[in-house]
């Protein structure tokens, strides 16, 4: 009797754990994007505008989203600095590298507000031609799940419409024969220019 009871309890526990981790992935699909559409799109628009002058990316390093790494790319060297988001040294550095201080500070605040852990501009190549996209990673609440090892909701913003197969997966070319993997991930359609995936790594 005891054995049966234990088995039943164990089964219920396993089902609960499995369903909770699966639910997490579902929650962070297209719903997340539409819920935060305005903030996400403004982050992307702001970032795409600022990087035209000097490319950079921002990553948050701690749970509280207060410590960040700023990577500034110049022609000869990439500078990687770590700051507290509120410290003066951050402002001084932005001024030193002639970056748009006010807009970057706003961008940082917007990233903090939706737990956006990394924003970057990624290059990729199709038929030998260089193209680029904006890569936005969001830390999900899946990290609270016991077996929820896929923790990051990733969005990619393309400047031009993309190709998708019948399952909504991002494809590389018009012929739709090859899946377009980005950082090893398979992405799904939100709209013609925006895709998402759930990943174990934010970059």
């Amino acid at each position, binding site marked *: 009797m005891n054995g049966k009871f234990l088995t039943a309890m164990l089964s219920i526990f396993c089902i609960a754990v499995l369903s909770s981790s699966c639910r997490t992935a579902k929650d962070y699909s297209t719903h997340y994007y539409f819920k935060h559409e305005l903030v996400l799109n403004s982050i992307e628009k702001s970032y795409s505008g600022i990087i035209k002058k000097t490319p950079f990316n921002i990553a948050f390093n701690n*749970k509280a989203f207060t410590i960040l790494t700023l990577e500034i790319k110049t022609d000869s*060297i990439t500078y990687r600095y770590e700051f507290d988001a509120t410290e003066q040294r951050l402002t001084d550095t932005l001024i030193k590298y002639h970056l748009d201080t006010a807009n970057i500070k706003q961008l940082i605040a917007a990233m903090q507000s939706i737990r956006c852990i990394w924003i970057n501009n990624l*290059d990729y*190549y199709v038929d030998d031609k260089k193209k680029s996209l904006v890569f936005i990673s969001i830390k999900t609440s899946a990290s609270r799940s016991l077996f929820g090892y896929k923790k990051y909701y990733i969005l990619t913003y393309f400047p031009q419409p993309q190709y998708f197969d019948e399952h909504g997966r991002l494809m590389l070319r018009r012929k739709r024969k090859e899946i377009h993997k980005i*950082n090893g991930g398979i992405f799904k359609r939100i709209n013609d220019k925006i895709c998402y995936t759930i990943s174990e790594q934010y970059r």
Partner: protein
Amino acid sequence: MIKAYIFNKAIYTAIALCLLLSGHAKGSFVPLLPNDSSEISSIEKAVAFVDSIQDLAPSVFWPNVRPALFLENLKTNIYQPHSPYQGRGTNFCGYGALTYLFIQKDPLGYAQLLLKLFQEGEATYGATFFKPSTPIKSAAGKLSFKGVLDIRPAEQMWYLCLADHYKGYLNVLNRRYDPGDEDRMWASVNYAKFNRMVKKLLNYQSKAKGADLLHPLVGDLFLYISEHLKTGSVVLYINNRLVHKKNNARVKPGFPTHYIVLKEIIKKGNKITLVYWDYGGTTLIELTPALLKKITFGVAHYTKN
């Protein structure tokens, strides 16, 4: 999902045990190779050589390497010696660091070797004879989603050749190339293998401190590195996951993951600034002495013969 999680954990544990059980790459001076025939060349000679190559015919040995793109890649590497790019998500960082040292030492030799490999399917450099396997020849030119490496077939060919030729204990379970292996253990480079590659290929005199799971016992690490940087090339074997995080895992791997070629090290107060080469460019980062000690597993010092 749970199965995949447990499987991943098991793989990591197995790798950690392999690393733990291997004790090598202890500090030692290695005698010079007696039969080395390589010469140190100038960048001007290398430029003249690559500029002299006009129409390159397709190679029967490398069906997916397009000659025009191959030549363009070769010229890029010679004109911009910092440009070798090991690819996003691959395990080619060790081969990338080796290539950077190679082009610094003998750019003409590098260009001639790659051209011969392309045209004849095999080639010799110094005492090393490269005869890549058939799967390598089919794969070169087809690697994709790796950033700019996608359009650099000469580098694809070269990194695949290196991974095919040099083997270490991390490659024991996966010795034959299958598509996608550039991201897996097939391409990984343990510390002893890296030092062996540099010594054998470049005929450098080498002094390597540290190991795959042990930090180097050198006293003041900053002093040790800065002193050795004055007299030769220094490659650091580091745990890149601590300075270039990819997730917020509470438990970080306690082993090295990346090779960087050091260009400069400066100490100011409690901050150490590292300037190094990796991924086709120079990066500057600031660290505390404690973090530098934590991330550094190997300090390899190379001097020219």
